[in-house]
């Protein structure tokens, strides 16, 4: 770790280096190119991104170059496809955005890869498969596909497979539609690898991956009288090991853990995780900043992490009344909430992620900063995703925001932060110290320094 004091770390300290950046260079960001989700697959070999234009781009890591072992393999484009298109619901006169809200990978069972991608209303199961051979030597067709005149065929041969340039094909295998009235915010694949859940603002549905015309509603918090609405579901996730357990977070800052064995409709939680609000921090915006934007189980399943506007909290599943750890992401924004409300930044939904060993958590911030918190050493670091550091293996310099008072050299004052440059989506390789950090329209890949 490069701690607050700077300087090279030894031992377990990680030095993060720039590896790659993907995406357009120019500052003029096309709306469709805005990255809306980032996800490694279970092996870490594949990295998927979704954008506002409904496209999915999958990067594949090169096999490690044994000769040049100074770095791990690079990620290169593997497949690009249009997952969702804009739709118009004529009945309700509503436009349905094509923006990809979430991508979740299925564990690999055969040669093909499968992932779920979702927009506001429809979830799709995509099969990504490689084709590196093709049959040649048809009797009735020419090589270019034209049909031969059968009368000219004098001999017969058996077509054989010959190698071809690798082609990666994505095809939609299932379309799970028409199950959500409100906007889908989460999908999560169960550890049984047969079912998954999808959550919108008020309901959570359980699906079977093979069955598209039916889904079970397992949580419904829609009040009988909508004027009594006080909270919405903001995220949901299955437990990584217990296939009967899932959690969902709310806009009120609570997390409910539900057990599907208890009843068909899990409106009554098994556990309720909530930290009492600090009354001295009460403001106009208390409700907004306590809304949880992301919830993620640790790989072990023992903990879960939540992200609200200003902090990251780690919860022990065995303790409901308060988190076991709280990390301030950008507390200096607390005095700026008014402005952030005006410019809508206060509604930004930051995600968070665990590293493979659950020892470090990461989340994004503004000015293209992202933060990591080491749970063991209690040290944290702020790094920046910027093209200025775009030489491979350049060690990233820690950044510091000066909240008030005298600004030291190399510090950035709160008022000069660029709130248009926000890092909402980050992902950590399941096994290695490789992270993918999405700025507005660029994807940065950083690795730890390998000596």
């Amino acid at each position, binding site marked *: 770790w490069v701690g607050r004091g700077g300087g090279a770390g030894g031992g377990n300290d990680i030095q993060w280096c720039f590896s790659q950046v993907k995406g357009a260079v120019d500052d003029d960001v096309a709306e469709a190119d805005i990255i809306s989700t980032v996800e490694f697959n279970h092996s870490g070999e594949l990295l998927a991104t979704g954008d506002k234009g409904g496209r999915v781009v999958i990067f594949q890591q090169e096999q490690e170059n044994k000769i040049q072992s100074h770095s791990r393999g690079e990620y290169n484009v593997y497949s690009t496809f249009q997952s969702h298109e804009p739709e118009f619901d004529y*009945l*309700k*006169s*509503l*436009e*349905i*955005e094509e*923006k990809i809200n979430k991508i979740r990978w299925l564990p690999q069972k055969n040669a093909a890869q499968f992932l779920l991608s979702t927009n*506001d209303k429809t979830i799709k199961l995509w099969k990504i498969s490689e084709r590196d051979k093709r049959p040649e030597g048809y009797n009735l067709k020419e090589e270019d596909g034209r049909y031969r005149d059968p009368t000219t065929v004098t001999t017969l041969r058996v077509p054989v497979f010959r190698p071809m340039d690798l082609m990666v094909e994505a095809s939609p295998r299932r379309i799970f539609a028409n199950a959500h*009235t*409100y*906007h889908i*915010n989460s999908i999560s694949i169960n550890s049984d690898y047969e079912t998954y859940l999808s959550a919108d*603002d*008020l309901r959570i549905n359980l699906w079977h991956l093979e069955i598209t015309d039916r889904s079970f509603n397992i949580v419904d918090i*829609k009040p009988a*009288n*909508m*004027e*009594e*609405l*006080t*909270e*919405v579901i*903001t995220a949901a996730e299955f437990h990584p090991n217990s296939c009967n357990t899932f959690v969902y977070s709310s*806009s009120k800052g609570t997390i409910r853990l539900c057990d599907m064995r208890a009843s068909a409709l899990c409106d009554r939680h098994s556990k309720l995780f909530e930290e*009492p*609000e600090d*009354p001295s*921090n*009460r*403001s*106009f*915006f*208390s*409700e*907004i900043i306590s*809304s949880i934007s992301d919830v993620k189980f640790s790989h072990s399943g023992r903990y879960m992490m939540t992200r609200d506007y200003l902090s990251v909290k780690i919860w022990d599943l065995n303790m409901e009344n308060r988190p076991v750890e709280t990390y301030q992401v950008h507390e200096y924004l607390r*005095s700026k*909430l*008014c*402005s952030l*409300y*005006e410019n*809508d930044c206060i*509604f930004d939904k930051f995600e968070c992620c665990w590293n493979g060993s659950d020892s470090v958590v990461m989340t994004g911030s503004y000015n293209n900063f992202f933060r990591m918190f080491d749970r063991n050493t209690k040290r944290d670091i702020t790094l920046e995703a910027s093209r200025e550091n775009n030489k491979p293996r350049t060690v990233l310099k820690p950044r510091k925001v000066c909240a008030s008072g005298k600004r030291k050299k190399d510090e950035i004052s709160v008022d000069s932060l660029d709130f248009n440059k926000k890092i909402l989506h980050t992902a950590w390789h399941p096994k290695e110290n490789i992270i993918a950090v999405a700025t507005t329209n660029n994807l940065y890949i950083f690795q730890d320094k390998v000596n």
Partner: protein
Amino acid sequence: MECALDAQSLISISLRKIHSSRTQRGGIKLHKNLLVSYVLRNARQLYLSERYAELYRRQQQQQQQQPPHHQHQHLAYAAPGMPASAADFGPLQLGGGGDAEAREPAARHQLHQLHQLHLQQQLHQHQHPAPRGCAAAAAAGAPAGGAGALSELPGCAALQPPHGAPHRGQPLEPLQPGPAPLPLPPPAPAALCPRDPRAPAACSAPSAPPGAAPPAAAASPPASPAPASSPGFYRGAYPTPSDFGLHCSSQTTVLDLDTHVVTTVENGYLHQDCCASAHCPCCGQGAPGPGLASAAGCKRKYYPGQEEEEDDEEDAGELGAEPPGGAPFAPCKRARFEDFCPDSSPDASNISNLISIFGSGFSGLVSRQPDSSEQPPPLNGQLCAKQALASLGAWTRAIVAF
């Protein structure tokens, strides 16, 4: 909490966000609008507290001049920082006597009285000429030491139990200043939305206290922690969208995302409904009279001083549309409109629709009738406003549409 904006600006900004969310791509974002409505509620609480503090000061002056002939209601003054428990109300759920039951007896009592007051205002407007007080439910505030965080507001003599016969002059228990904050429901919601099944009509905010409703003795010394706003100005309640917006707006088209029913409610008829009594506030007529009328009368008293405070609410109310109630109102209103909203009246009408939904307190949502959410209200243009609003479904859908 530092905030560079005052409550009114926040209200204005919030309403603008809600309004613009209707046209955003991808449909209405329920989550964001819910959060914005929380800010709206919080800002309104502060706004109202400031107003009531103002009111109290006024009443103190008048009390010294007139003998009291009305009982009054002591109310806790809501400090800007409200305890979290008070936020248990949904921002859309303005009022809620039922929830108040869980709270302290004094709070319950106050809320009860508040509901009585509103009920009175709306149901007995033609029967009770006595002036109404402004009985906003108090929110708990941390008492500020000796100065006290409590101020009093004159109550209304006509506080009555919701379902009983009126009995005037019911003495109200003063709220004793105490060291602990009271977990009261937010004043704004309670003040605006008596969830009473018999109050389907236009829900107006609590009226300005009539000049002749002085507080009783044994009041705790008032302290106004709120920053002083226009000193000479009191506006009895939350800028009443229902007073203005509903009167002057045209239609609200709402849709239920679940049943896919689209309904159109003619808001304008609320105005007719109110104006029927010829004491419509916006008609600029009438001496202080009962209920709305008295509210109107009381409010009118303060109109001249209101301009600088009302830009956002005026947005809400300023539609440019002639209120069906008639001509006399128009000049007065138009002047304000020009002062503050020279821009598009279509926007204003939309905003007024929105405000009417939030500010009306949804009293119109509580229907005497069985839940008719499955049946859209008849779209007959001459539909009685009461029925239109009484139809729970229409407004539920309105919220859903957000």
